[in-house]
């Protein structure tokens, strides 16, 4: 017989592990990836591969040569950051810019704070915002969707539906005159519109979200509070003046809202712990998204909204505690 091991209880442990969760999330992104590969072709594949490879590369370099600690590039977290970063940039973005975005995501947003679990802000979103500010022209040329093509240059580009509405309204057009220029809602739902690599298909993203809910990688509170508050706020504006404000359903299925609400805002590391904390955080994200989309300088507000709410997470965690057992006595 071996020497007996003595350790504190419990003596059984869940099968779940960090890397299982991370690769599970990657798996759930496959439908969204397939849709984008279909509409944006080889360009989307190249951006995704470049982002994942450079995120892993930079994590390796930093862990091996700067921190001189253990290398954890295969735990899946760098892969997710890479995929998510690729999903929120245009498919025809020059690949060297993708590499720079990856460096900012991994180096600045993740490793500077101490690596996995220590970062305050969602790394992929930090990378995207950095790219948006540094390369505003390239980050605003969205390729028009076609069926699968291997073309990498001279792609026809155009504004996203959100940008079309924003510009049109700014020039005094009515929403009802702008909408016919945009694909029908059924088409938008599938992902047939201009936009970032992986954000276009609401249906594919919702499918991934359902998978993550079943596997308990996410809980319902953040997506529901986020999407719900966007719908309600956009709905109120629309009811006030439908010629000036676009309808709430449009807000839900265009831009990065679905990807943001289901994949970005729910990032375990940068979101609150308690149920009510998550709901408050989700509502905050929704509120800021609509404020930026409708009144701000950018047509899209998801990235900024989530990053701003990330900064509030420590405060939210302090203010919204789980309900303690036996705290308020209810009998009956």
């Amino acid at each position, binding site marked *: 017989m071996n020497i007996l*091991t*003595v350790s*504190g209880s419990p003596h059984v442990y869940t099968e*779940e592990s960090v890397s299982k969760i991370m690769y599970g999330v990657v798996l759930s992104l496959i439908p969204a990836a397939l849709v984008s590969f279909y509409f944006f072709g080889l360009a989307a594949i190249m951006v995704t591969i470049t982002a994942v490879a450079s995120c892993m590369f930079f994590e390796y370099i930093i862990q091996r040569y700067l921190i001189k600690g253990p290398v954890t590039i295969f735990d899946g977290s760098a892969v997710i950051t890479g995929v998510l970063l690729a999903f929120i940039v245009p498919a025809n973005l020059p690949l060297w810019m993708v590499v720079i975005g990856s460096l900012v995501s991994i180096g600045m947003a993740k490793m500077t704070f101490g690596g*996995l679990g*220590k970062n305050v802000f969602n790394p992929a979103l930090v990378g995207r915002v950095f790219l948006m500010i540094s390369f505003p022209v390239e980050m605003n040329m969205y390729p028009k969707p076609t069926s699968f093509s291997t073309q990498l240059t001279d792609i026809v580009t155009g504004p996203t539906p959100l940008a079309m509405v924003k510009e049109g309204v700014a020039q005094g057009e009515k929403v009802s005159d702008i909408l016919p220029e945009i694909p029908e809602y059924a088409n938008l739902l599938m992902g047939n519109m201009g936009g970032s690599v992986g954000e276009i298909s609401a249906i594919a993203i919702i499918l991934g979200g359902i998978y993550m809910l079943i596997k308990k990688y996410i809980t319902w509170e953040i997506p529901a509070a986020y999407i719900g508050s966007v719908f309600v706020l956009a709905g109120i504006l629309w009811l006030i003046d439908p010629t000036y404000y676009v309808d709430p359903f449009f807000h839900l299925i265009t831009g990065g809202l679905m990807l943001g609400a289901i994949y970005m805002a729910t990032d375990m590391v940068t979101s609150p712990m308690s149920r009510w904390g998550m709901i408050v955080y989700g509502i905050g994200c929704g509120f800021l998204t609509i404020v930026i989309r409708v009144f701000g300088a950018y047509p899209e507000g998801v990235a900024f909204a989530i990053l701003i709410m990330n900064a509030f997470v420590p405060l939210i965690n302090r203010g919204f505690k*789980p309900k303690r057992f036996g705290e308020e006595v209810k009998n*009956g």
Partner: protein
Amino acid sequence: MKTFKSGGVHPPENKISQSAAIEVLPVPETVTIPISQHLGVPANPVVKKGDSVKAGQLIAKGEAFISANVHASVSGTVQKIDEVADSSGYRKKAIVIKVEGDEWEEGIDLSKDLVKDITLSPKEIVTRINEKGIVGMGGATFPSHVKMMVPEGKKADYLIINGVECEPYLTSDHRLMLEKAEEMLVGIRIQMRALGVEKAIIGIENNKPDAIEHIRSLLSDYPGISVEPLKVKYPQGAEKQLIKALLNREVPSGKLPIEVGCVVHNVGTSVAVYEAAQKNKPLVERVVTVTGKGLKSPSNFLVRIGTPVSALIEAAGGIPEDTGKLVNGGPMMGKALTDINTPVTKGTSGILLFPEQEAHRKPVHNCIRCGRCAGICPMGLEPYLLAVLAGNKKFEDCEDENIMDCMECGSCLYICPSGRPLLDQIRTGKSEVGKIMRARHK
């Protein structure tokens, strides 16, 4: 189906010994009976080396308010009174008896006849339970007679019987409910009389449908007792969670079940109460599950207190070659044993064998702030936060974050995908906060 609302986990049940009927384990050659097998003050030995004793004879007296009598489980000669490692791993005083024959103290009814008529008065019942050394047999080993004395100004309206057995692997309560159901039911009636309550509920998780069925078929003879099937969820066998599940009453933080009119006793305790009150028999034997995936014949044994664990494992087919860990109790709250000859005590519900590859913790990774520990904590605490605070020696903050509400069920450490030692750090915090609180009262 009822269950407690917030938190909880569902580890694989692994009830591999559930169809093994209770077998009587032969009396060993020597028994080692610790004088502290219960929560509270250790009992004082009333025998000395060389004394000959009979089975059922008092050998150590519980003299403090929270203490319990200890009886000889065999007949023979007291060989020595020595310090022996018990299931906690600490060396504690124990009475070692060399077995000679199997002679019982007079007045103890060893027949199997069911005695249904309850003749003792409530006061006599409490005295009897105290005399016979009955303690909570679910594992916490709180002296039962103390629970039967309702404090001034409080009133119990429900007796809750814990037949949940929410710990994976363990099946001793399950077997008792199948094989000694009538004894248990009489025991419940006795406890109801002592407490002066009209209603008792037996909570049983629905992974034991045969036990639910069997007890229900006997209920017509036992007024006031009902059976409530519960959805399988750990830690439903914890008093506060069980009361919440059955009656939706929430025991306030830092208070006892009597605060919401409940007294909770275990199935095994109820059988022991029956034997004490109706048969005059002290608590000298109990049912112990011996189980593990590598074990040849996982079993449920009726064992004399003080029998070495090694004898149980031998009877269940011998210790498998690759055994890496022995646990006294269930896998969630049980204690890892330091010695295969550790004696069975009143609180030993099971002996669990883990193979070497399951004997170790998972590798520890960074906390990814997934919040699962906070989501499943049945007490609504934030284990990740408590662990950090305790690790940084911020014990006042630990107290503010209700660390003392933690019952150490182990769900947080079970669920953590990063394998973090959450409960270990919380235990450290609790012990330090306990010191601070005691210092404040002085």
